[in-house]
């Protein structure tokens, strides 16, 4: 089931006098294709959870429409939308067993949809098998690990075979190893069921690793939509560039003079643009240690991260909150006593941004 947003807007009126209303979701206009896994990504307070609540109907839209397929669901109550939702804290009913939890949505069905006890149990078992939790059917949620609880929550959301599956920060309560495992699991389940899935996260790595499409938001406004790699390689503004990637992109104050791009005194390349002040973003993997390089920085130290190493250095033009980082293969030789270090830059990994609008300059 594809999901279409048509100028969707949600405004929370501010109760305190003199303060402005909060526009949590501002003029959403895009389409989620059928059967895809979408990552809604952004820093906290960017409106991603509100967007999710609008899809499932827990919040009412101020303006605009939401369609599931061709059906306008904007004014439908949550129970009539056919969505399944997994909450950040799972919201499993603690007094019910795993089986009862999974069966709970089925027991709510009325009229023609009403199922027999056997049919319900069969369905619940099917959902449990999908998330590989069938051995724990008689346990209470408190007797399960975080990852298992997560699976139960997913099974409960899937048991009615929803048109859209919604996941609100599904991995944030899990430890690092389990998170990795569970996100693979979510990916697998989504592939198997082919249910259109929207999941919200503030963790860019999580979003990039499993999403078909990521939607990057800031202050209620969609910044960029696209395949994770495309968005990473081709950010449309400074915010997107900074938000995606670990270590984060290095940002410098720079300028264009006579079609040459400068960081401080270093000329790092050519540009067709006219003279102006710019921000220059360079991805850590775009900086290659090279004695004949174009960018000179003060060398600080080398950090070992296992597979590859990172060089930490300083440059007075750098405006990132943290030091400049360059990712280098672990076998690269770096003189540990050197005062300075020079890099050559991969053109594909260097982006120019307007100083005022922070939009990408091409």
């Amino acid at each position, binding site marked *: 089931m594809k999901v279409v947003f048509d100028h969707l807007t949600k405004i929370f009126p501010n109760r305190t006098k003199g303060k402005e209303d909060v526009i949590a979701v501002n003029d959403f206009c895009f389409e989620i294709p059928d059967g895809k896994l979408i990552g809604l990504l952004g820093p906290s307070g960017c409106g991603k959870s509100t967007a999710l609540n609008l899809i499932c109907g*827990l919040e009412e839209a101020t303006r605009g429409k939401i369609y599931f397929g061709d059906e306008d669901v904007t004014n439908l109550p*949550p129970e009539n939308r056919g969505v399944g939702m997994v*909450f950040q804290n799972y*919201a499993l009913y603690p*007094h019910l067993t795993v089986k009862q939890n999974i069966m709970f949505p089925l027991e*709510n069905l009325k009229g023609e949809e009403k199922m027999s006890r056997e049919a319900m149990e069969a369905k619940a078992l099917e959902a449990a098998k999908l998330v590989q939790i069938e051995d724990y059917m008689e346990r209470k949620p408190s007797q399960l690990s975080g990852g298992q609880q997560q699976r139960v929550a997913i099974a409960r959301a899937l048991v009615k075979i929803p048109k859209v599956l919604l996941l609100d920060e599904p991995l944030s309560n899990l430890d690092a190893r389990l998170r990795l495992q569970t996100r693979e699991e979510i990916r697998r389940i989504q592939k198997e069921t082919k249910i259109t899935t929207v999941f919200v996260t503030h963790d860019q790595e999580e979003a990039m690793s499993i999403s078909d499409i990521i939607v990057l938001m800031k202050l209620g406004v969609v910044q960029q939509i696209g395949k994770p790699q495309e968005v990473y390689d081709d950010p449309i503004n400074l915010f997107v560039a900074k938000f995606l990637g670990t270590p984060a992109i290095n940002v410098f104050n720079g300028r264009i003079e006579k079609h040459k791009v400068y960081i401080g005194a270093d000329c790092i390349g050519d540009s067709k643009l006219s003279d102006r002040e710019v921000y220059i973003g360079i991805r850590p993997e775009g900086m290659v240690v090279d004695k004949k390089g174009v960018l000179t920085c003060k060398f600080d130290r080398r950090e070992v991260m296992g597979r590859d190493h990172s060089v930490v250095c300083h440059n007075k033009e750098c405006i990132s909150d943290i030091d400049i980082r360059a990712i280098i293969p672990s076998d690269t030789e770096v003189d540990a006593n050197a005062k300075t270090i020079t890099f050559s830059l991969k053109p594909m990994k260097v982006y120019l941004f307007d100083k005022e609008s922070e939009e990408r300059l091409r």
Partner: protein
Amino acid sequence: MINRNNLKAWLYLLPAIAFLAVFMVYPLVDVFIYSFEEGYNFASQTSFGTGAYNYLYVLHDPYFLQALKNTFILVIITVPLSTGLALLISLALNSIKKLKELFQTVYFLPYVTNTLAVGLVFMILFKKTAYSEGLINLLINSFGGHSVDFIEGPYWAKMFVLCFYTIWIVLPFKILILTSALASVNQDYYKAAKIDGTSKFRTFTRITLPMISPMLFYLIITGFIGAFKAYSDVVAIFGVDLNAAGMNTIVGYIYDMLYGNSGGYPSFASAAAIILFIIVLTITVINLLASKGDE
């Protein structure tokens, strides 16, 4: 090392244990012993003999049976009613947004109101005097009914006043506990239920009730114990001579046996006290078992 720590721990506990032993354990044991000593006399510290006579006497005493009946009626009516009412009011309070604090305060007022003031209010409501019939009687009259003497009249009228008073006086505390219990239920459960299309009734029975059931059981158990120990409220309404009014309670009976006009029988009082203790213990154990079985 462990032993020394243990010694220290006992030393710290000693003051509390000493006080409990002297003022709680010793009297309890003493009461138990008195209850089997026939005709025990405080002054001479003597008794005629030992046996179950005290219990037989108390259990055949019409005043005690009346007190037992009164207490049971009071318990059976007020505990479920007050808990149910408190739950309804708490649910309502929890679902309104405007003026919530105001209503919470209003419902909590009886808890902080002086007993004498409450007594006065109930006088105005129920008591027949030379000048007034009482507010409730005026209401009954305006609907064409006959005046009822709630304080010295028929048994059911007196029992009604007592139950009304008891419910009214225990309600605020229960509302306070239940509103906070309801507010502490994670909202995500309700959101999840809503998305799954759970009906309001089912949400209440399958989610809200189990979530607040520990608090409900707490209120029911303390409610039972409190109602079984009813005495001062009854005196406040019907005066000291409860046997004459036919409104005595078990605690009232015990008090009368000790100090009342017909008093001076510590052995009978002790036996009645032990019977009350057994009743309360039984009910509490049943309650606890029921709450355990529910899980």
